[in-house]
């Protein structure tokens, strides 16, 4: 393995003839493991289908989401059933509105709340946690105390209060839900940053003279991505559940917009009249999507950190 110095030049001249062995980064390893995980891959496929369906599906609907079908009104139990002929593929709700377009529109809102909320949580939480963890000392103490205090506040209640005070709007919903979970993400990121900070490769970079912000961006953040990605995927279903919960109570998105929570709530109320489709369609979308998110999150976790299951 020892190559003496005098061979240096000739070897260098032969560089272009050598086969460069492609390296296998940790990301490549993780991706390979993920692709082999059947449950995760199926979930990814299913979820992609659901997302596509939510956004492209409405082009095929024959009714808008607020139009009332006067023909069906008055006898929803028989006339509101799902059928191809009436154009109500999923049937109608109790007010005669087309459930197909309502479910799809609700899917759009719920999914977007999930993704946007998780995005806010990730961005805010990562920045906050990295700063607290990297700079440590007083900065860290104060920042984490603030997090501790904020964690004791029953967020759901505060969010509902804010929705009541400041009028219900979709934007407020997005931001509010995102702000609930950044605390958890900040804690996790801070913990990871702390343990990374003490690793020798960070010491090596400091000893080389690399500037602080470059260390954070080039050395710390890439090594955080794994755990952040896993938690983000597990956050999304949490956000969706939170939003659905608020909508179920009637405090979420305003009519005529709807979401899975609101649809489930309506469907649950009319269950006893035999209009089960009003519950089952939104419920299925909800449950299947959540399943997919959990399997993908689990798959990511196993891919990035394989342990005995």
């Amino acid at each position, binding site marked *: 393995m020892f190559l003496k110095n005098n061979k240096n030049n000739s070897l260098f001249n032969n560089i272009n003839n050598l086969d460069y062995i492609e390296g296998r980064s940790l990301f490549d390893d993780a991706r390979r493991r993920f692709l082999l995980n059947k449950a995760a891959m199926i979930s990814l496929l299913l979820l992609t289908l659901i997302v596509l369906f939510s956004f492209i599906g409405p082009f095929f609907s024959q009714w808008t989401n607020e139009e009332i079908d006067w023909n069906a009104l008055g006898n929803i139990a028989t006339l509101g059933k799902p059928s191809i002929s009436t154009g109500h593929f999923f049937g109608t709700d109790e007010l005669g509105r087309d459930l197909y377009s309502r479910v799809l529109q609700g899917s759009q809102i719920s999914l977007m709340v999930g993704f946007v909320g998780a995005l806010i949580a990730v961005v805010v939480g990562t920045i906050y946690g990295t700063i607290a963890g990297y700079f440590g000392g007083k900065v860290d103490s104060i920042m984490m105390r603030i997090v501790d*205090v904020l964690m004791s506040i*029953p967020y759901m209640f505060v969010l509902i209060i804010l929705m009541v005070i400041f009028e219900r709007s979709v934007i407020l919903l997005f931001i509010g839900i995102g702000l609930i979970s950044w605390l958890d993400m900040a804690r996790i990121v801070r913990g990871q940053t702390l343990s990374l900070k003490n690793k020798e490769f960070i010491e090596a970079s400091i000893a080389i003279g690399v500037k602080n912000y470059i260390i954070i961006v080039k050395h710390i953040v890439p090594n955080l991505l794994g755990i952040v990605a896993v938690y983000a995927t597990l956050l999304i279903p949490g956000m969706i559940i939170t939003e659905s*919960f608020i909508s179920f109570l*009637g405090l979420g998105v305003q009519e005529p917009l709807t979401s899975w929570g609101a649809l489930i709530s309506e469907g649950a109320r009319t269950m006893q009249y035999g209009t089960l489709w009003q*519950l089952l369609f939104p419920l299925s979308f909800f449950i299947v999507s*959540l399943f997919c998110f959990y399997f993908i999150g689990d798959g990511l976790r196993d891919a990035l950190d394989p342990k005995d299951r």
Partner: protein
Amino acid sequence: MIYFIIRRLAVSIPTLLILIILSFILMYSAPGGPFTSERPLPPQVLANIQAKYGLDDPLWKQIWDYTYGIIFNFDFGPSFRYKDRSVNDIIAQGFPVTLTYGTWSFIVAVFFGCSLGIIAAIRQNSWLDYFAVGVSIGAQVLPNFVLAPILVLVFTLLLGWLPGGGWNGGQWQCIVMPVIALSTSYMASIARLMRSSMLEVLNSNFIRTAKAKGLPVKLIIFRHALKPSLLPVISYLGPAFVGMITGSVVIDLYFSTGGIGLHFVNGALNRDYSTIMGITILVGILTITFNLIVDILYAWIDPKIRY
């Protein structure tokens, strides 16, 4: 250990004060409330509030009165909506209900969750393990507001075994479905946490030492492995508790049990600010107290944290 408790208390108290003050300021700045110049409330309610808060006093005095009232007299003030009831009345009516089914839900979630998790870990990769993991995953996508209608569909409409709602002074038939609906998703999370935590502990060096000492399996699991395995579960109990209290809102709404959750939602819809603030603060107090207990429990198990 005592020093540890005192330190934790010292953080909790300012947290509580901040919560109360923030709530009051929110209430103060809310549009359409008595603190703004419109004051559209019925005169008797206004009179109550005037008497309680001294609406023309400077802000800091109002905050002081409010905080003082809560901490020392446990008095949350009059309702903004009902002229003859104070927030305390409303809370007193709803709290015992929530406490009852909430406590049961918590016990069920922890007991069954831990048992399921431990069994799954000990019998890893057996059919029991797969069943437990499957149930956990399944239950996690069934939050309370999803499970509640399904339960009613099955047990009330189809089978007719249980009433679809009401409280009836705490009759057991009225408690069953609320408890199942509330506890299930948390039981699943606890089971998964317990399982993965115990699996990790069972692979650790000190369990290998315990095996090398020739100890019987039961002793290894219950004396050596259980305590450290519980640690992540205990950390989870805080958020689980908060989640269950929040979830009680759905339970009250759907099963008409009449706990504080219901009063909260009604208050929200009716703009009864003092009630919703009061309930929020109450929940905050419960959360802080519970987190304190959880922290102490954690330190009791892990001797390294105590000092």
